[in-house]
């Protein structure tokens, strides 16, 4: 009598009936490759597994096949939903482009009391009021700002030392708030300051208008003071006192700090992290020097190479993970930004981790003299005499003229990584971005040869290290996943 049941083989998928969906791959280490799909979902696999998969010889009953199917690397007769899901995720990833320029930086003065050797800003001495922005220029900058369709607008005051022109900050804040009664944007203010000129009047104003404070803290006292010279050689103490006062007046979470890595920092990453923990910060952004402005002129940028910085970063991340394992919740913010791209369908606002780059369309900067630049780095380059990125001047050009200027559109078009040699086939493309400022500064070309690019080398090193942690260290993975906003 014939069985009423079919053989087990009947219920198995037919062989070789799957179709590949778009993905890229790259060697992770000597044995393994990482495959990444269009929206950043990834799978680590051996070379022969990759080849079996691509050549349609991977058994459709294998766990690897199911894992690849779950991450939308493949579709088969059982399910054709993957392209639709990928489409939705692509839309989510790209949604930020349509939101357009959010960050608007106002250089209210170039004057500064510090003379940091690596400073990316062309500083002027404190007493030269010729380098202050005027109210008339600020008004035009605000006109420009509110032309952006972005639902969220962040106005960041920069310098020099912006508190040296605090009257103009007050003027801009009040004027922006006035306009916003009609505009109804999500309006946020930030002052990027060294805190030297903090007064009770300033703190009261910041408290009344919910202004955030962002300062610089390069590490322990001797390192900070060596990096950030000022008359009296007391920059560290001024900063620490300022952080304490600002927190008391505004709240702990209203005050943040940034560090810059100099050659003197390279062997001291644990001390730098300890300093941030000691000062009560919840995390740190391990930030390398950029090849702009005075950092180039003073040769500080060339003081260490990509390998030096990557070693610094890896040791820092390892130490931060150790701290977390010991119960100290502390985040490395750059890693967290990349993890956001790796583990969620959401894009970051980080200008240089976007394709096209965020220059002009994520952030824009108004120089004290009315000149408009698509990034702070572009403005710094102009201070060194090269105005290639200058989009125009608020006093003479319209919003349309500047946003459609070749100074913006040419580097922006060149920053679409999907059409850049090497980037277009790189598995890390969904995690990476473009930096036309960097490549122009180092190779005199907005695109740059990525095989020779320090930007590329650093990013690849970081991506590989994070993937190693996620893949090989379950405890680290748990901590890293906790840094992501789902």
């Amino acid at each position, binding site marked *: 009598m014939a069985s009423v049941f079919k053989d087990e083989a009947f219920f198995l998928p037919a062989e070789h009936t799957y*179709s*590949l*969906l*778009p*993905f*890229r*791959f790259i*060697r992770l280490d000597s044995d393994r490759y990482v495959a990444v799909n*269009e929206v950043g979902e990834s799978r680590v696999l051996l070379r022969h597994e*990759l*080849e079996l998969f*691509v*050549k349609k010889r991977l058994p459709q009953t294998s766990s690897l096949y199911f894992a690849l199917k779950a991450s939308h690397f493949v579709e088969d007769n059982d399910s054709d939903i993957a*392209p639709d899901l*990928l*489409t*939705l995720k*692509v*839309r989510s990833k*790209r949604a930020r*482009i*349509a939101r357009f320029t959010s960050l608007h930086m106002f250089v209210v003065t170039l004057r500064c009391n510090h003379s940091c050797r690596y400073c990316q800003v062309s500083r002027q001495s404190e007493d030269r009021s010729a380098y202050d922005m005027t109210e008339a220029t600020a008004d035009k900058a605000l006109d420009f700002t509110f032309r952006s*369709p972005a639902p969220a607008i962040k106005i960041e005051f920069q310098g020099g030392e912006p508190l040296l022109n605090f009257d103009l900050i007050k003027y801009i804040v009040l004027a922006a708030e006035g306009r916003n009664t009609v505009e109804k944007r999500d309006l946020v203010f930030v002052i990027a300051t060294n805190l030297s000129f903090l007064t009770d009047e300033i703190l009261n104003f910041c408290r009344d208008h919910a202004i955030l404070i962002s300062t610089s803290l390069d590490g322990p006292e001797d390192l900070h003071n060596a990096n950030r010279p000022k008359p009296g050689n007391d920059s560290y103490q001024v900063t620490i006192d300022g952080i304490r006062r600002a927190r008391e007046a505004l709240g702990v979470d209203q005050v943040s700090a940034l560090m810059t890595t100099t050659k003197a920092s390279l062997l001291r990453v644990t001390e730098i992290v300890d300093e941030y923990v000691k000062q009560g910060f919840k995390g740190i952004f391990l930030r390398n020097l950029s090849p702009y402005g005075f950092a180039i002129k003073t040769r500080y940028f060339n003081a260490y190479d990509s390998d030096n910085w990557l070693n610094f970063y890896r040791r820092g991340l390892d130490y931060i993970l150790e701290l977390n394992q010991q119960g100290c919740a502390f985040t490395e913010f750059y890693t967290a930004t990349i993890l956001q791209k790796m583990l969620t369908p959401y894009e970051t606002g980080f200008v240089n981790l976007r394709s096209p780059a965020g220059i002009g369309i994520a952030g824009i900067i108004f120089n004290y003299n009315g000149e408009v630049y698509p990034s702070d780095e572009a403005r710094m380059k102009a201070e060194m005499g090269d105005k290639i990125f200058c989009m125009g001047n608020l006093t003479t050009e319209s919003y349309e003229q500047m946003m459609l200027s070749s100074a913006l559109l040419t580097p922006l078009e060149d920053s679409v990584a999907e059409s850049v*040699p*090497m980037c277009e*086939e790189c598995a890390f493309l969904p995690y990476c971005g473009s930096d036309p400022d960097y490549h122009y500064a180092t190779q005199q070309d907005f695109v740059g*040869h990525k*095989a*020779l690019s320090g930007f590329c080398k650093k990013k690849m090193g970081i991506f590989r290290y994070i993937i190693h942690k996620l893949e090989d260290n379950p405890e680290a993975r748990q901590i890293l996943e906790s840094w992501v906003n789902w």
Partner: protein
Amino acid sequence: MNGVVRDGDKFVLSVDTRVYSLEAVKKTAYKFAAATSIILQPRKDEIVRVLFNFAGVHGRSDPEGVISDFCNELLDQDLREIIKRETAPIRNLILAHAFSRSSLVENNEV
């Protein structure tokens, strides 16, 4: 190293373009700009000679290691071509669909 001959201060690898496409060879060569300078010389018999020069700024590179990595990358490029060939239509469809009803397009239409 098999398949590699030394020609003065250069190393020469012969690649059969019936096995690897010229585009794959070119893409691979582009990637190695930091380690060596490469010249591609086509021959009449569908062989491309890949000349590796380790002089000057590339003097500190390890020729054997670089050429070995070059061959591995060439294999990878071949695999990438298969993926690209098979997935280009669906990739274009996904991207077209993803942007088809986005506000970017709507704004342009206003």
